[in-house]
């Protein structure tokens, strides 16, 4: 067996990877043209690992080690506008520094894929997991997919390119994985063979747009062949209309996320619910927990044990927070008596956390709707052990019995 063949076998096998490495491998296989990134805990391993692939000549990617996250995303915007397939990764303060460029990327309809390794925001400084960083960016026009484990981080990163670049979508995608819980925790990850991934993601081909003053269709790319300007000044006359493009695109992305989830399942045998939501034990559930990210693993563990004792409890994991799968959520939870949203972030001054708000709003027009409660948990990486989930479940069951809500928003595991 030649060395080349040996490497192929190696690439096709199960590897022990942490979440960050899993993302780096997915990017390596996805035929990415440009990566511009700046390291930040707990995302650093993604950038380190990927720069090794570049240094070893295993990818054709142009790697741009920029001096800040603002520059990282700016470089990605430029490269994506030129027609390249582009990836970057960040966390917490890094995402905060990218803020203004987030809106540029979505407004210019650039299909950039970014892994965000969820981490709390300063102050006080904290390097551990919560969802404050990406929840703050939930209105930036990016698609947001939250993953449960390292395998899903790998699978979703590959899918993200296909979703982002779909002609009906053309929006940037954030793949969100929980800092440390996933980013630094080893798991057996099934890698698809290189050529399978390569075929799945294909080559990025910029869509064609009709430009009135040229009187013909040209690629939406700064390719140097047909000079176009992207996103110059809009005033009261056209800005609103251009925002409607984004509204429509992110609505379109629901179907695309589901379709890509199905296509990927055919290749890999792995799928994540319908791509938007992942239900567990909801068929006969009286109470249910709605959750994002890695905590779903703990919740599922608790539910599995309780169901053996006949407790009718289920879980709905939201995989796509943007676009928010309103219809799927209502369909999945409409027959449940009591539902709680577990939020790993705060929206100071609001009635509960971001997930809670989406959930309650989704049910407002429904004739019969569950009681919906909010549990804020795990800020700054605070662990959410099965015992804490059990306490939540007991409270939900109690509310289901009495149909009486004493406290709408609760903070789990915080000391008085």
């Amino acid at each position, binding site marked *: 067996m030649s060395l080349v063949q040996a490497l192929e076998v190696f690439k096709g096998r199960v590897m022990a990877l942490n979440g960050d490495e899993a993302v780096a491998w997915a990017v390596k296989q996805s035929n990415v043209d440009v990566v511009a990134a700046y390291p930040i805990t707990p995302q650093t391993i993604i950038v380190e690992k990927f720069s090794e692939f570049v240094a070893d000549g295993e990818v054709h990617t142009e790697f741009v080690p920029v001096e800040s996250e603002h520059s990282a995303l700016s470089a990605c915007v430029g490269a994506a506008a030129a027609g390249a397939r582009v990836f970057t990764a960040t966390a917490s303060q890094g995402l905060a520094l990218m803020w203004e460029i987030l809106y540029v990327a979505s*407004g*210019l*309809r650039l299909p950039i894929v970014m892994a965000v390794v969820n981490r709390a925001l300063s102050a006080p400084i904290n390097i551990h997991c919560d969802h404050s960083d990406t929840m703050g960016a939930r209105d930036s026009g990016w698609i947001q997919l939250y993953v449960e484990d390292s395998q899903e981080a790998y699978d979703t990163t590959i899918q993200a390119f296909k979703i982002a670049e779909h002609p009906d979508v*053309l929006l940037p995608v954030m793949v969100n994985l929980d800092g440390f819980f996933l980013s630094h925790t080893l798991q057996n990850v099934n890698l698809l063979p290189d050529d399978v991934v390569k075929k799945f993601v294909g080559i990025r081909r910029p*869509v064609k*747009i*009709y*430009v*009135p*003053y040229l009187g013909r269709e040209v690629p*939406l790319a700064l390719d140097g062949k047909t000079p*176009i*300007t*992207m*996103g*110059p000044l*809009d005033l009261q*006359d*056209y800005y*609103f*209309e*251009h925002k*409607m*493009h984004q509204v429509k695109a992110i609505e379109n992305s629901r179907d695309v996320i589901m379709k890509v989830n199905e296509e990927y399942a055919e290749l890999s045998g792995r799928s994540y619910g319908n791509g938007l939501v992942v239900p567990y034990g909801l068929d006969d559930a009286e109470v249910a927990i709605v959750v994002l990210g890695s905590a779903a693993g703990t919740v599922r563990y608790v539910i599995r044990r309780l169901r053996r004792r006949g407790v009718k409890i289920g879980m709905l994991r939201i995989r796509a927070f943007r676009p928010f799968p309103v219809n799927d959520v209502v369909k999945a939870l409409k027959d449940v008596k009591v539902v709680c949203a577990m939020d790993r972030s705060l929206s100071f001054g609001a009635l509960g956390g971001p997930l809670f708000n989406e959930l309650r709003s989704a049910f407002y027009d429904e004739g019969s709707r569950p009681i919906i409660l909010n549990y804020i948990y795990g800020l700054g990486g605070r662990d959410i052990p099965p015992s804490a989930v059990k306490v939540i479940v007991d409270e939900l069951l109690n509310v289901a019995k009495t149909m009486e809500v004493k406290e709408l928003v609760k903070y789990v595991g915080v000391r008085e």
Partner: protein
Amino acid sequence: MSELKGWRELPLGAVPLKFSTEFKTGDWRTFKPVIDEDKCVRCMLCWVYCPEPSILWDGVRISIDYRYCKGCGICARECPVNAIRMVPEG
């Protein structure tokens, strides 16, 4: 305003509907640059510094395209021989 297009008709990526040359920015001006032909040494620094394509060169002399000149005064400021004066409009 009646010619404004609906969002379904617009190109993606906020690509403009018109050439930038169709936007006449000359009406923004409150001061207009006036070139003193006798002083001008044709160094072309005004052409380099002008943020709009408003400095014209016909091979012999420099002139200003007032359709686009916003009156920013950068040319007057940068002219090494003070050949450009900013004169109030109107």
